């Protein structure tokens, strides 16, 4: 009987703790993140109700059917019930897969306008590097042979390629607010993962692959980039900054950087 009470108590405390939202998502900074939040709320509501009902039923059964020395009525099952709850759960789970696929496709399948700005993000043990192409929109050729962190060339940009002369290399990811940006994710050593909580997006950086990721942020500000795939002993300190700037300010910054390169 103690156990029945304990299950109820646990269920109530867990449900209350979730409802409190003391440790929760940071505010979203774009419409996608806001949609994510509402879809998550829907899920947590459904899961919460199921959780609460199941635990409450378990507790109630334990109390209701405590041993009172009676003889139990023999039943071996009920096929109709089996069919009903199989069908209901199947419908529930299949229903979940549709909106989730729609939301997912907004991140990974929607086409991006060809004019979108592109930025290269390179992960290395244990830092983030960012590269913007010059006004020609082209990135300079890179090769592992030219990688030299001390000389400020983490990408290994080949000096022989004129397209690379006007590339801007930066330590923080600066993007203009309200504009779609195509991130080209690269890694030069092990797998890292790009994660900005406020964007509600995460994507691995896999060496040898260029993975495109579309991001867009509306609210200017500074947000932390946390590496989310174990990348070695400095994994926990692989912190980067996403700086969302008003477009005019961003353009000015980029122009200034390009001038400094020349």
């Amino acid at each position, binding site marked *: 009987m103690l156990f029945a009470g304990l299950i109820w108590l646990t269920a109530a405390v867990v449900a209350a703790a979730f409802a409190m939202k003391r440790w929760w998502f940071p505010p979203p900074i774009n419409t996608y993140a806001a949609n994510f939040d509402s879809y998550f709320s829907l899920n947590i509501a459904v899961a919460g109700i199921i959780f609460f009902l199941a635990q409450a039923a378990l507790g109630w059964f334990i109390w209701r059917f405590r041993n009172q020395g009676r003889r139990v009525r023999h039943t071996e099952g009920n096929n109709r019930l089996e069919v009903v709850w199989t069908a209901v759960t199947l419908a529930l789970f299949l229903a979940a897969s549709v909106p989730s696929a729609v939301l997912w496709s907004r991140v990974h399948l929607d086409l991006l306008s060809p004019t979108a700005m592109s930025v290269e993000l390179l992960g290395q043990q244990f830092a983030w590097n960012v590269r913007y192409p010059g006004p020609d929109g082209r990135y300079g050729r890179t090769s592992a042979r030219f990688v030299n962190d001390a000389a400020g060339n983490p990408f290994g940009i080949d000096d022989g390629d004129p397209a690379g002369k006007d590339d801007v290399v930066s330590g923080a990811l600066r993007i203009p607010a309200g504009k779609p940006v195509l991130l080209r994710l690269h890694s030069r050593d092990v797998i890292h993962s790009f994660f900005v909580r406020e964007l509600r997006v995460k994507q691995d950086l896999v060496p040898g*692959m*260029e993975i495109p990721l579309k991001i867009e942020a509306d609210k200017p500000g500074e947000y932390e980039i946390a590496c989310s795939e174990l990348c070695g002993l400095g994994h926990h300190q692989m912190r980067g900054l996403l700086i969302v700037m008003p477009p005019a300010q961003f353009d000015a910054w980029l122009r200034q950087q390009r001038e400094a390169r020349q």
Partner: protein
Amino acid sequence: MQPTVRQLASVWAALLGFTLVEVGLAYPHLSAALFLIVLLALSVGKSAMIIGFFMHLKFERRALSLALFPLLIVFILVLLALLPDAERLREMRF
């Protein structure tokens, strides 16, 4: 029940024959995809003969084949889910 020597010998001859056909097919230079499909079909046929006669599964109860192969075939097919990714990787290398 066991296979007769005559059966075993004809299976052996057929396997050698199929092998020669496979080698022969390598030279007309079919397209890679077609060639692979033909080769795999021939290989599956050859394995069926090996399993059926040499491993005398044909002479065992049907239940044994049903217990062993459907799952194996499903899992091999499931493994093929890796291949679209390989195609994609070719596009994404830089």
